[in-house]
């Protein structure tokens, strides 16, 4: 499990990564009321915006931790945005992507680095 400073995570197996937002981000956002995600087949560069999550008060943009092509989208989140609150690393996942530049993973934060990052801010 690796993280970005913008609070996305990616869990990679072979060259496919599952992307979502961190427990810390979920706690900061509060109840998530709406999740907007792209369709399968879209290709993104690292750092590009791929969607938004909205709580009652706020809108937060979602950014790609790595470059890749979307191969699956968690369409359950349209009717059940609360899954992101309940299990951000489980049924609250957002995208599965085929990594196009796997070497980018090395530039992401480890869980330990991410924890100390959010502890400071």
């Amino acid at each position, binding site marked *: 499990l690796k993280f970005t400073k913008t609070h996305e995570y990616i869990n990679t197996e072979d060259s496919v990564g599952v992307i979502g937002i961190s427990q810390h981000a979920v706690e900061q956002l*509060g*109840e998530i*009321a*709406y999740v*907007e995600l792209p369709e399968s087949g879209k290709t993104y560069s690292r750092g590009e915006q791929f969607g*938004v999550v*909205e*709580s*009652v*008060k706020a*809108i937060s943009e979602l950014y790609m931790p790595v470059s890749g092509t979307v191969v699956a989208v968690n369409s359950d989140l*349209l009717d059940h945005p609360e899954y992101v609150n309940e299990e951000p690393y489980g049924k609250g996942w957002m995208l599965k992507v085929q990594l196009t530049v796997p070497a980018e993973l090395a530039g992401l934060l480890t869980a330990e680095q991410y924890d100390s990052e959010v502890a400071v801010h």
Partner: protein
Amino acid sequence: MAESLTAQLKRSPLHARHVAAGARMVPFAGWDMPVQYTSIVAEHMAVRQAVGLFDVSHMGEFIASGPGAADFLASVVPGDVHGMDVGKAIYTQFTNERGGVVDDLLIYRLQDHFLLVVNASNIEKDWEHLQSHLPKSGVTLTDASERTALVALQGPKAADTLQAFTEVDVASIKFFRLAQGRVAGHDAIIARTGYTGEDGFEIALPADAANDVWDKLVAAGSLPCGLGARDTLRLEAGLPLYGHEWDDDTSPVEAGFAWTLKSQVYYLGRNVLDGQQAGGTSRKLVGLKMLGKAPAREGYEVLRGETVVGHVASGAPAPALGYPIATAYVPADVAIGETLNVRIRGSLAPAQVVKMPFYRRSRS
């Protein structure tokens, strides 16, 4: 840097309570206020179903007294000030020469003075506005904001909760009436008013009594609620918020509040507002029910077909309704039931024009 900015924010007498309760504090109109304690949705639903307690001490309180007080107030608001007997409250606005709204406010008539409760964000602007229209004698205007704490106890269980702490028969206080008495032993003004669409009370207290009253009402089962829930509750109830539905260039007629123009005398901007009531306005405020799941937010474009006809004034998911709602100023010929579009991140999202309030409590 952040620390020194926080230090400049004003603090309510209840500030330490909020911090100790773990509330998320945010800057609001120059005050460090709680936006939520645990969850906006849980706080919102507590007010709809039981009882919630809000600290609204950031709001401004002015006192107008003297033999000319009623005439003075009647010259700056379109509400029927002369028709207020002791114990009456009215919702009204300070209007400007153009018929726009300087601020919206509640006026309470007490034995020997009027209490005006104004928006925190507008305290200085209102003060200057009133000073500039104050007659040379006969009226004393006092800013009591610093020494007054204001809490709002709102929800279907508000009356029962409050009754345990006062000898005043709260059930006998009618909507938009007030009583003076003691709450938990402290002098208080108990007004049956609110900003949530539920039954409830707004209670003005000396600043040093706020903590005791707050603690007792919380111990009696009131859920502390932040400004986040206050905003979603008022939006569901179709109640305007200054800076969103109101500003210096929107009129009470455009906003659907012509029913508050009850004055029998001349007030600032009356000629303009009378003209609008007789001849209509080019735009009006409407409620929008989003037909999809994406919330419309403040500032988003509203379109009729593909033509931009207005902008969203307020928008959010509605916790008690289960779909997103919004308000918007649109052309006056837009009809209830019509489907408009809201541009959300480049896509057009359909929205139905509906009657406000979006939510109306059942009266038992």
